[in-house]
């Protein structure tokens, strides 16, 4: 088979694979009256009415803000703690390094359903129910092990000579870290940040359990609880799900390289 034809065929197949999503996009733009009639597949006209409803009359906009805030703060917290930990594990003679690494991997395998009840009691005792803080802390429990694991690997890939040279020139360890290592490991930091953000954006169980009102409800929760008065508002739900998926999709489209690098590093390094 000729190369371009085969390549085109693969692209078409993959476009077919993404049809469930395209169908949701189309549904979000269909007039209400045509939703439950199939065929025809294509609507007579496209309309923004569902987006108007979602943006003006639902809690989705507020939940998008919550999701964005929680995901950004989780990412920042996991990076702030994780960068130093990864640096220590990769470069400094810390005691029991093997055991610590194993504990971090094991920690990332903890099922959320097992830790959700103690965390719920903890959040209640700390008076953090229905706050961003509760979600940021809970999400850090899975984002941080991932970030440490990825960054320790990325740092170890970088040859140590430059740092040693800078240290010989009299730079302190923090200066070496900030001015020599950090610029070199920046792509790795981007990969780790991207994965932490996506995991936090998509998280549902903790958010469903620890939130109670729109003060902290994230968008997966708002979508799961999307209200219908008499019947299921399929068009509005479709519009809400497109809005909820926009940030991940834009990130995957724009930062594909970093995402793939992070996914591969997470799986391949042992």
């Amino acid at each position, binding site marked *: 088979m000729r*190369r371009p034809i085969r390549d085109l065929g693969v692209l078409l197949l993959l476009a077919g694979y993404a049809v469930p999503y395209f169908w949701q996009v189309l549904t979000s733009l269909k007039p209400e009256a045509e939703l439950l009639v199939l065929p025809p597949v294509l609507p007579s006209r496209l309309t923004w009415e569902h987006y108007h409803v979602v943006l003006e009359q639902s809690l989705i906009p507020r939940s998008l803000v919550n999701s964005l805030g929680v995901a950004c703060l989780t990412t920042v917290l996991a990076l702030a703690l994780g960068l130093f930990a990864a640096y220590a594990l990769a470069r400094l003679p810390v005691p029991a390094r093997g055991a610590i690494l194993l504990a971090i991997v094991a920690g990332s395998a903890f099922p959320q359903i097992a830790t959700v009840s103690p965390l719920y009691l903890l959040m209640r005792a700390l008076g953090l129910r229905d706050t961003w803080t509760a979600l940021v802390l809970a999400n850090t429990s899975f984002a941080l092990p991932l970030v440490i694991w990825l960054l320790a690997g990325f740092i170890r890939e970088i040859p140590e000579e430059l740092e040693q040279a800078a240290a010989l020139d009299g730079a302190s360890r923090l200066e070496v870290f900030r001015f020599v290592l950090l610029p070199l490991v920046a792509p790795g930091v981007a990969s780790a940040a991207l994965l932490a953000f996506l995991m936090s954006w998509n998280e549902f169980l903790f958010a469903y359990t620890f939130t109670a009102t729109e003060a902290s409800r994230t968008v997966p929760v708002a979508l799961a609880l999307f209200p219908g008065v008499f019947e299921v508002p399929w068009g509005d739900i479709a519009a809400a799900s497109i809005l909820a998926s926009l940030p991940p999709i834009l990130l995957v489209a724009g930062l594909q390289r970093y995402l793939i690098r992070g996914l591969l590093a997470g799986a391949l390094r042992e």
Partner: protein
Amino acid sequence: MTPRQRAARREGVLYLAPALLALGALTVYPGLWVLWLSLQQRVPIFGIERFDGLANYLFLLADPRFWSATRVTLAFTLASVALEVILGVAVALALWGQRLGRRLALGLLLLAWALPTVVTAKMFEWLYHPAAGLVNLLLGGRELNWLGDPALALPGLILADVWRTMPFVALLCYARLLGIPAELYEAAQVDGAGPAAILRLITLPMLRRILLIAALFRTLDALRAFDLMFVLTRGGPAGTTETLTVYAYRSLFQTLQLGFGSAVGVVVFALVMLVAWAYLRAQRREEAAS
């Protein structure tokens, strides 16, 4: 140990401490606390809170709903992971050597993986709609009630999970394929091996390791999965899609039995750790053998 080394060590501990403290408070502590909770009768609304030994676990042994949830969890995990691995290898092989629009191809593939699971659940709920769903239309205008029929709900759920996570397996395999040295293939072709023999004797053996890793990750995720079944089928109809995670959640936060629900959560915990441990053992044995 020289003073310099000792200083470096101290600094290392200092850098690690905040992260380890956070992980200690947010994973280790809850991990131990849940074991303790699972040994209690704890129903906050009735003010019940007492140590009860293994009573929750003994109850589980004779609880048909627990065994049903265990069966559903295992069936879901086995079927999802098997389909993902097979499809993932097929897609990786198709992508291999793709020149035209490789970025677009990977983007289309990763789209399904990047979506929030709740979005995927809502999407498939609509795709499975008995009268207006695309799935029934593609099946020639049938009126199958995918999510309402006890025989179809679990397959429907598995299909949604495979759609969502197969790209992860495909991506790992694809990356591995790119790393196979071309000389291997040239040598095989010189020896007169056909495409089928090359696939069986070179490509698949080269994928073995990465497939094991992908299957491990996916198995752990499938055992822990919650969002998809909780939103798409709510464990129904008639409990045919109620996994251990859904059972645990309902016990914890719908019937508010914190002790009993924690015991079900601990069973999921144990299953996950058992699989991870078995994998590590197998890997170590393989390394010792080679």
